[in-house]
């Protein structure tokens, strides 16, 4: 059974359904009890009603766009087989060469450019006592990212639970990590899009109050 998760914007209290829960609500994928919780909340919470509206617009756009792209692909496949039949009825050879060039060009145009460069970027996140005004460390978007989290001074544990949180408080990523030489390493092979992020470290099985929290930027 999927849960009603309580999302949390960094620094705010936990009393709103998460974005993931609202998306499942909009798509009618919540269990009955969860749906009741969300709907009761929405009767009173204007902020979440606004988020439901946005989520609905987003999901609707996604569904329509995907459906139209599927139709386009089916049409292209049908036209491709019709063109093939026409060719069999005796197109000149030059037309074949032209067609192949067109297909090659289309493949080049359709395949998305891979913006990833070689080599991961390591971002060290450390606890800085009493140093307000220090700007968050930053890394480039789209690059493989290895986060190195300083956990010096924390009670030693065999493992920690690590959450990566986006700007809206949604948990993007959760993983158990083992400490090595006073730090935790988190490998994000696909990199991240531009934005502000937080990483929270919890004791294993107690993801309620973080032991430590770090902020970083992706630019």
């Amino acid at each position, binding site marked *: 059974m999927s849960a009603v998760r309580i999302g949390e914007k960094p620094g705010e209290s936990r009393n709103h359904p998460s974005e993931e829960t609202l998306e499942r609500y909009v798509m009618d994928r919540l269990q009955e009890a969860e749906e*009741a919780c969300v709907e009761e909340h929405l009767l009173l919470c204007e902020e979440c009603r606004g988020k439901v509206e946005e989520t609905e617009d987003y999901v609707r*756009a996604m569904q329509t766009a995907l459906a139209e792209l599927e139709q386009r692909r089916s049409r292209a496949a049908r036209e491709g087989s019709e063109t093939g039949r026409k060719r069999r009825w005796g197109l000149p050879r030059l037309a074949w060469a032209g067609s192949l060039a067109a297909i090659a060009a289309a493949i080049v145009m359709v395949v998305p450019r891979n913006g990833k460069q070689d080599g991961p970027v390591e971002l060290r996140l450390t606890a*800085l006592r009493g140093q307000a*005004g220090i700007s968050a460390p930053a890394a480039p978007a789209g690059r493989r990212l290895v986060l190195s989290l300083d956990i010096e001074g924390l009670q030693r544990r065999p493992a920690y639970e690590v959450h990566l949180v986006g700007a809206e408080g949604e948990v993007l990523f959760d993983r158990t990590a083992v400490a090595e030489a006073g730090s935790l390493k988190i490998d994000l092979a696909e990199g991240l899009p531009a934005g502000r992020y937080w990483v929270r470290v919890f004791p294993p099985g107690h993801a309620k109050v973080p032991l*430590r929290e770090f902020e970083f930027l992706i630019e």
Partner: protein
Amino acid sequence: MPGAGAKRQEQEPDPRPEPGGASADTSEAAVQPAPEPPAGVRWALLVQKIQTGDQQGMEELYKIFSRGVKFYVWRHLGTRDLDDRIHDIFLLVVEAIRNGDLRDPDKLLAFVRTVVRRQVAGQIKGIARQRQRETALDTKAYLAVDPDNPEAQAMARERVEIMKEVLDGISPRDREILTRFYLRGQSEEQICREMDLTHNQFRMLKYRAKMRFGEMGKRRLRKRRLQAFFMRFSGSR
């Protein structure tokens, strides 16, 4: 907001169980308790006022719930006769409270929700029968964009075009994953199993698509503002 890279106060978790036994960790089985009433409102007192016919109680009920009820009704039934429908719902709620149908005043929120849902469900059935549709439809989908609001329709169309740009820019595999989730209604668990994805990879993919959608939308808006700006000087309107 925490400071950049700054150390938050480290707290060891309280080993005692949560009051009421509900776990607030990331367990998939957690369901949260009902939300608290607005500040200064006590459900029991409000229900009592309504039961005694106190006009102030009824006004308070309307004030607290009208927006939420309107939102629910609008989402499911659209804008037609919206005010009348909300008015009818409130009359039903008040009548039911006076008849003693609400046994536990602290469950007022759940009670209002139930009344609203029943009313809306009944009216959706009526609409479907009226239109005699042959195929199964998601009512919300076809009522989604108000046909009497061309601006809303244009904006919806633009969102679709932006989304198509986003989807054209991702790999076929990522597009397949999104298609399975958003279009074919497959669950995250099924998709991850069949396409050999972790839960984290799945969430990250959705998140990236959402971020790109937001960025492209902003870019279009900036471009439009620039165009409007320069058109003022070119003399063309």
